[in-house]
């Protein structure tokens, strides 16, 4: 069995949730796609639900991260608060945020 790949992202890292259409079962909700965020933590490694949805084994296990996204990035925020949400995102739906300061 292949050893588990090292996670690509680390807590605190600035990331961007991939903007892409998906085909089939996907756990990344549409409303966060394309949004910049920050990794909170690695939740663990799980079988890929996009593969499980079609009877696959879901292997190799895929790292799943908590990602914090500011509400203002999603929907604008006239009150300019710092409110954010956390969403669980699989590694292949994350990219390094090249635009992050």
């Amino acid at each position, binding site marked *: 069995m292949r050893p588990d790949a090292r996670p690509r992202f680390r807590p605190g890292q600035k990331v961007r949730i991939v903007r892409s259409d998906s085909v*089939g079962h996907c756990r990344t909700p549409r409303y966060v796609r394309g949004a910049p965020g920050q990794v909170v933590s690695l939740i663990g490694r799980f079988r890929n639900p996009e593969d499980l*949805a079609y009877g696959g084994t879901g292997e190799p296990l895929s790292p799943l991260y908590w990602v914090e996204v500011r509400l203002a990035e999603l929907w604008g925020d006239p009150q300019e608060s710092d409110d954010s949400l956390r969403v669980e995102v699989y590694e292949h739906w994350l990219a390094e945020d090249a635009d992050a300061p």
Partner: protein
Amino acid sequence: MSRTHDLGGLPAGRIDRTEHELTFFDKRVDALYVLLTGPARAAFTVDEVRRTIEGLPEAEYLGLSYYERWLKAIALLLVEKGLVDASRLDIPDAT
């Protein structure tokens, strides 16, 4: 894929918080699901049921009740897996 279920961030009105008892139909569908996904049969998995429900056309997704969606998905998967011939099931389309 319509992703009708993917409602996050969309205007969707008030959540209906009405409580209701499970009907006998609901319980039968749930029992069917448990039997088919259990180790004795392992006909399909919960992930496949989700994918099938999510793939229902929008009108069906919205028009069917929760357990009606499950039943439709179960029927579609039984056919997909070759366990039941499509001609032996009456799978109506929602209108």
